[in-house]
C-alpha cells in the first residue's frame, strides 16, 4: 500500500492557505507545497500538506495530441505528446508537469501508468479533474508486475536516442533499457550499428519502423487497433497481466472503441475506468496464442487486469 501511495502523483500548489476553499471545492485533500509555505498550511482543515521542491525535478511536456490538420507533413498521423520515454530513461527520476485544465488528469494518469514520481502544477480549472483522477487512481490495486518488453534498447543518453525511445513508446513498441544486447528479448537496438545507423536517427520514425519491421507485428506483445492516439503500457508475470491505456486526446475527446491484442491466453479480466466510465469489454476472445478484446469507450485512462 505504501508503494502504491508513493507512486501516486501529487498536486504541487504554490497558493496561500486562503486558496484552501478552491481545493476543498475540487476535492483535493493532499498537496505538496514549497517548504517556505509549509508552516502556513499546517492546521488548514481537511488538507494535508507536505514540502516539495520543483528544483531538480525534470519538467515534462503537457500530454496531448496535436492533429496538425493544416500543417503539411510527411504523415497524417496525429502527433502525440507523451512522456513515457522520459520515465523509462530515468526510472528513479523526479518529474513535474505544468498543465492546465483537464490535462492535469491525463498527466496524473500518465505518471501513474509508468509508476513515476511526478508532481503536477495546475490552474484552478485543473483542480477538479486532477482530484477526480487521483481518487480514481487510489482505487486501483498496486501493480507488482514487471513491464513487458519485446525490445532491448541500448540508450546512449543522446537527444537522438531519446527521440527514438519516444517514437517506440508512442508506437506501442514495448522496450526496456539494456546495457548490452539481451538474448532473451526478441530484438535489440543500438543506434550507430549497421542495422540502426546514426544517420537514420535524424528521422526517428524511420528507426521505429525498422525496429517494428525486425520485430514483426506477430511477435508484438501488445497491439492497439482503432485509434492512433492511445498509448498502452503492459506489465505481466506468470498468470497475470495488466494493460494501462492512455488516451492522449482525452482532455478533449474520448475514443469510441479500441481493440487490444495481448500475446498469451488470458480467460479472465477486470477493468478500472477513469472518468466514471461504466463499460464492459466486448468481443473478448482468448485464443491459444493471444487474447483480444474491445474497450467500447476510453475517455482518459483505463486499466485492464488479465488472468488465466
Amino acid at each position, binding site marked *: 500500500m505504501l508503494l502504491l501511495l508513493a507512486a501516486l502523483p501529487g498536486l504541487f500548489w504554490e497558493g496561500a492557505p486562503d486558496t484552501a476553499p478552491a481545493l476543498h471545492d475540487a476535492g483535493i485533500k493532499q498537496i505538496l507545497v514549497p517548504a517556505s509555505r509549509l508552516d502556513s498550511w499546517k492546521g488548514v482543515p481537511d488538507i494535508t500538506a507536505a514540502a516539495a521542491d520543483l528544483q531538480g525535478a525534470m519538467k515534462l511536456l503537457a500530454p496531448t495530441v496535436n492533429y496538425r490538420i493544416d500543417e503539411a507533413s510527411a504523415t497524417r498521423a496525429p502527433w502525440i505528446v507523451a512522456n513515457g520515454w522520459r520515465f523509462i530513461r530515468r526510472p528513479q527520476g523526479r518529474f513535474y508537469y505544468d498543465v492546465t485544465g483537464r490535462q492535469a488528469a491525463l498527466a496524473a494518469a500518465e505518471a501513474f501508468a509508468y509508476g513515476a514520481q511526478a508532481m503536477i502544477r495546475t490552474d484552478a480549472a485543473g483542480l477538479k479533474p486532477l482530484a477526480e483522477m487521483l481518487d480514481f487512481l487510489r482505487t486501483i490495486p498496486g501493480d507488482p508486475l514487471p513491464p513487458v518488453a519485446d525490445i532491448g534498447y541500448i540508450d546512449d543518453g543522446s537527444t537522438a536516442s531519446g527521440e527514438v525511445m519516444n517514437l517506440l513508446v508512442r508506437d506501442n513498441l514495448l522496450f526496456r533499457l539494456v546495457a548490452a544486447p539481451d538474448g532473451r528479448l526478441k530484438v535489440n537496438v543500438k543506434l550507430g550499428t549497421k542495422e540502426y545507423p546514426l544517420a537514420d536517427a535524424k528521422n526517428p520514425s524511420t528507426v521505429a519502423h525498422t525496429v517494428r519491421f525486425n520485430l514483426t507485428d506477430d511477435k508484438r506483445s501488445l497491439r492497439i487497433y482503432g485509434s492512433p492516439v492511445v498509448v498502452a503500457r503492459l506489465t505481466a508475470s506468470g498468470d497475470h497481466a495488466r494493460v494501462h491505456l492512455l488516451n492522449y486526446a482525452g482532455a478533449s475527446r474520448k475514443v469510441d472503441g479500441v481493440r487490444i491484442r495481448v500475446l498469451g491466453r488470458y480467460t479472465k479480466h477486470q477493468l478500472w475506468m477513469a472518468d466514471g466510465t461504466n463499460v464492459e469489454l466486448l*468481443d473478448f476472445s482468448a485464443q491459444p496464442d493471444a487474447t483480444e478484446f474491445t474497450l467500447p469507450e476510453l475517455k482518459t485512462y483505463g486499466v485492464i487486469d488479465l488472468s488465466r
Partner: protein
Amino acid sequence: MPGPYPGQVIRVHAENSIDANSGKVNAQLVHQMIASGMKALTGDARNEDAWARFISPRDVVGIKVNCSGAPRICSSPEIVADIANNLIAVGVPAKQIYVYERFENQLQSVGYGKYLPAGVNIYAVETSRSSILNYDPKTYVETSFFGEDDTRSNVARLVSETLTKIVNVPNLKEHQASGVTGCLKNIAYGNFSNVARSHNFEKTNTLTFIGTLAAVEPVHSRVVLNIMDGLRGVWHAGPFSEMARFRFYPKQIMIGTDPVAMDHELIDVIEAKRKAEGAVSIFDRSMSHVGRDNSNPNTNHYIREPGHVEYASKLGLGVFDDARIKLKVIEL
C-alpha cells in the same frame, strides 16, 4: 459476384430522368428505367419476377448507398426508394431493409427518410467518426501500407451479422485516388473500416486493396445486384464533388450483377467525358499532373489507379475483357 450474369451490363438512358438545371429527378421515369433494366438483364417479362431472382421474402437486404459528396452527389433518393419498393413488392418486410452507409453525417445530409417506405431502416456504421464498434472484430483484411500501426480493415457488423443480401448503389464518379469510384469501390471502401490509409500519399495502394476487400466473404457473396446511379456524374476531383463545374448529367442507370464489367463501362464514360473536356486520361501517371490545386482538370492529388477494376477481375469478381462484355443500351 459476378453473379448469374457475368459480363452483362444494362444501360438505361432517359433524357428526362433529371433536370440538369434544378437537379430534380423524375421518380416515375426512374422507376421505369430500373424496371426496364431489370427485365432486360434477366429476360423476365414482369419486374417482380426479375427482382425475385435475387431476393426472397426471408432476406434481410442492405441497400448500400454512396454518400461521399452528399448532398451534392449521392445515390439518388428516388432510385433508393424505388429499390426499396421493389424489395417490398417481392415480399421483403420493410423492417428487413437497411439503407446504409459508413458515415452518419454524410447519410443524414441526404434525408432518405422522406423518400423511403415506412419502416425501412436507415443505418450508419460509424455514428462517431472512426469508431470501430460497429465493425466485426473477427472479419478483417490485415495489411500495412506505410507503417501505420492499425493494420486492420474490418467489415461492418451489419454485413457480417445481419444482412443476407446487398443491393449496391454506387454513383458514376471519377475518383482522385482510384480513378473511378463505382461498384467495386462502393462495395470495398463502403463496407470496411480504416480504408483511407490506402491513399495517404500521391502513390496509393488502391490498385490492389479495392478488389481484395470486395473479394472477402461474406461481402463477396452477399452483393447480388449493382444499380449504378448515373443520373448525375463527376468527371474530376471526385468523389466529393466540391466544384460544381466538374459535375455532369449522363442521365443513365446501369444495372448488372458483374461489378467489374459495370466499372469498365464507368471508366469508358468518365474517359469520354474527360476527353470531351480536354482533360488528361485517368490512366495518366505523370507526376507533372500531380499537385494540390485540382481546380485544374489536369491536376490531381494522386496518381490514379483505374487499373483496380482489371485487378479485381483477376480475383474472380467479374469480366474485364471488352470482347466478353455485353452492353445493352435502352433508351426511354
